[in-house]
Every structure is written in structure tokens, then in C-alpha cells.
């Protein structure tokens, strides 16, 4: 890009573009963060966040007041689906690769290992339980979790507790109680 546009003169903008732009400006940071917590690859997380907004722009039921909850729900589901896909692919890749890729310095750190373990457990849990854990750990209240996942608010506490137990059980089974 060698030059820059000079003067802005009024031109009727497309309606949907404006709507998308507004919601994107307001929510992109949160949505991208939710996805980045689940996926290890930042570039893929960014791509997925953009896909969520594109899908929103094509979904009439998601417009208006329902937008925020829809975006949150779709982002969590899309990221967990991607995580499960990556986990499945990971099972077969060692058979196809000529050898394991050398670990990066970051991968050598135990904190990265911790994150990978948490992700592996989330990928193994029933989707609804993984969604609840992710939303709750992102700072949402019970009421907000219920609203995003379209659940009865009175059952969030019980279901969240079950999800936590399931998470711990799966984690301990795989990695021990550390």
C-alpha cells in the first residue's frame, strides 16, 4: 500500500456492514480471548473468532439482543469442536510423521504442559460440561452461564459441580492428582 485515501466524503454504507462492524468492535476482544484459551495455535484462534462473526452476520436469529449470548455460545462450541478435531488428528499424526518436531523453548516449560493437559481433559469431557467450565472460568456468573447456554439458572450449580467432578476424575485418571 503506497498511498492513502485522502478525503472522506459521505456515501451510504451497507446496513449489515455497519451492524457487523459495531458488534465486532464491541465483542471481538472477548470472543477472541475465549477461543484463544481453548486453542494452542493463536493464528487458528484468530481465524476461528472471525468465522464466528461471519456466521453471526448470516444468522438472522442471532441478531438484536440475542447477539452477545449467541456469539459467546458459538465461540465456546466452535473452539471445543476444533480442540476435539485437533486431539483426534493428534492420535494419528505420530503414525504419519517421520519424527516428532523438536520442542520449542516454550513447550519445554511446564506451564505449557499444564495447559495442554487441561485442554486434553476438556476435549474428553461431554461438550456441555466443557462449555460450562470454560464460561465459568472466564468469569461468568451462574446466571450468565445459564443465559449463554440457554439453561435453567436453577440447575447451573448442580451441573457445574458435576462438570468439575468429571474434570477432576478425568484429569487424575490421565495425569495423577498433582
Amino acid at each position, binding site marked *: *500500500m*503506497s498511498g492513502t485515501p485522502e478525503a472522506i*466524503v459521505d*456515501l451510504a454504507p451497507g446496513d449489515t456492514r455497519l451492524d457487523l462492524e459495531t458488534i465486532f468492535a464491541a465483542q471481538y476482544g472477548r470472543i477472541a480471548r475465549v477461543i*484463544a484459551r481453548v486453542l494452542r495455535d493463536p493464528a487458528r484462534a*484468530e481465524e476461528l473468532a472471525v468465522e464466528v462473526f*461471519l456466521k453471526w452476520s448470516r444468522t438472522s436469529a442471532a441478531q438484536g439482543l440475542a447477539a452477545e449470548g449467541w456469539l459467546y455460545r458459538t465461540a465456546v462450541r466452535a473452539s471445543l469442536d476444533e480442540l476435539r478435531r485437533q486431539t483426534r488428528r493428534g492420535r494419528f499424526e505420530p503414525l504419519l510423521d517421520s519424527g516428532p518436531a523438536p520442542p520449542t523453548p516454550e513447550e519445554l516449560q511446564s506451564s505449557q504442559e499444564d495447559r495442554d493437559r487441561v485442554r486434553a481433559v476438556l476435549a474428553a469431557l461431554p461438550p456441555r460440561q466443557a462449555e460450562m*467450565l470454560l464460561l*465459568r472460568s472466564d468469569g461468568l456468573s451462574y446466571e450468565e452461564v445459564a443465559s449463554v447456554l440457554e439453561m435453567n439458572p436453577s440447575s447451573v450449580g448442580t451441573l457445574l*459441580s458435576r462438570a468439575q467432578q468429571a474434570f477432576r476424575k478425568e484429569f487424575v485418571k490421565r495425569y495423577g492428582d498433582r
Partner: protein
Amino acid sequence: METGSDPKTGSWVDDRMASLNTDAGNADAARGWSLLQQQRRKAAARRTRWTWSLSAAAAAAAVVVLGFPLTRAFAARCVSACVELASSLHTSLPSTTRAEHGRKLAPDFTLADANGKAVKLSDYRGQVVLLNFWATWCQPCQREIPWFIEFQQQYRPHGFAVLGVSLDEDGWNSVKPYIEAKKTNYPVMIGNDALGALYGGIVDLPTTLLIDKSGHIAVMHVGLCSRSDYEGEIKGLLVE
């Protein structure tokens, strides 16, 4: 509320879930928006390709069926449906020449062409300008470019100019070889989302505007348009 869980389980899980926070850095909204615009353009180009393929396949099937008298009426309906489908590609924005008093001023811009020469839209006042937003990966755009080369050749002496703005993400890397191969005889520049936003957000490619001699937008075509439509509109604007 009944939970039935070890009270420590909640904090045990929270501790582990908190480890994910370190991977959630600050998202770059500007880069995200640019990525979103690119994906929208590609999706629009894919839709156009599919519609053309579908329309062509249906037309071919109808031609086969026309050979049999009993199915001829059915085939005739298929053909008219195909024509309608194809004409829908001339899409959503008004494509007829707007009356002079209802036209809006085309946002001005200055961009460098392939030779690094600055091209300023307002320098073309007094001429009819065909401003074409395109990309090398956009199939319909490639159909139009030979027409624009001919228009430039034929109507330039009468006060007409074509300006091409490519929205290829990798800029001149893709565009330079392409315009050299096509031997374009008009200035081609590299645009961006900021320029697209000035024109109301260029989502579908090709998007082509015809700008009158006073610098106002007379026609806006989104999607592929027929050569004869362009030619008729150019001639009309030249005699205004």
C-alpha cells in the same frame, strides 16, 4: 442448592482452568477486522462461482432435454429459470444510471500504480471514470478485464478512463505478474480495507463504479455485469 461434590474440587478445577488464561493475550481487533473482510470477499466469490456453475449445468441439461418433443415445454421452463438465476448475479445494488441530481460524490483517493506513479481520482475530473475493484483470484473479475482494456482503447479519446484497484492480500506479488500478462493499458493500484470502507465496504468482487465527468457516482455494479450494459452506460455518460 445440592451439589454433592467435594468443596475443594471447585477450587482444584479453577486452579487448573486458570492456567489457560496465559494463552489469551490481547486480540488485535484491526487485524481481525481485516481478516474478516478478506473472508467475506472470498465467500462472495465462491458463491458467484457456484451460481454460475449451477446455472451452466442446468442450461446444459435443458439443451439435452430440448431434443425430445415431449419434454420440450419442461426444458423451456428450465432455460428461463437459468436465465433468471444468471441475471441475479447482476445483484443487489442499483445498476441503472442514476439521475444526475441524485448522485453522490465519489470519495477521493491517491494510490500508487505499478510504476510507483501517484494516481489521484480527482485528477480525472472532466472524464468518465470506470473504477473497478477486483482481485486476481476472482474469476468474474478476470472475465471483465479484457473488456476494460478494450473500453480504455476505444473510449479514451472521448474523455474516458479506467482505473483498477486490486484487493489482493499479497499486493503486487500477485498483481504485477497478472497485469503484465494481461497487458492492461490503464492504471492499476493496490487498495485496502480503508479505501473499501470509503466506498461503503467492498464485500463482493468485482465491484465496479462509473463516475461521471463531475466526479459523482452514476452507476455501481456489484458482481459480474454484461459487456453491453457497461458499454451503454459509458456512452450515455460521455454525452451528458
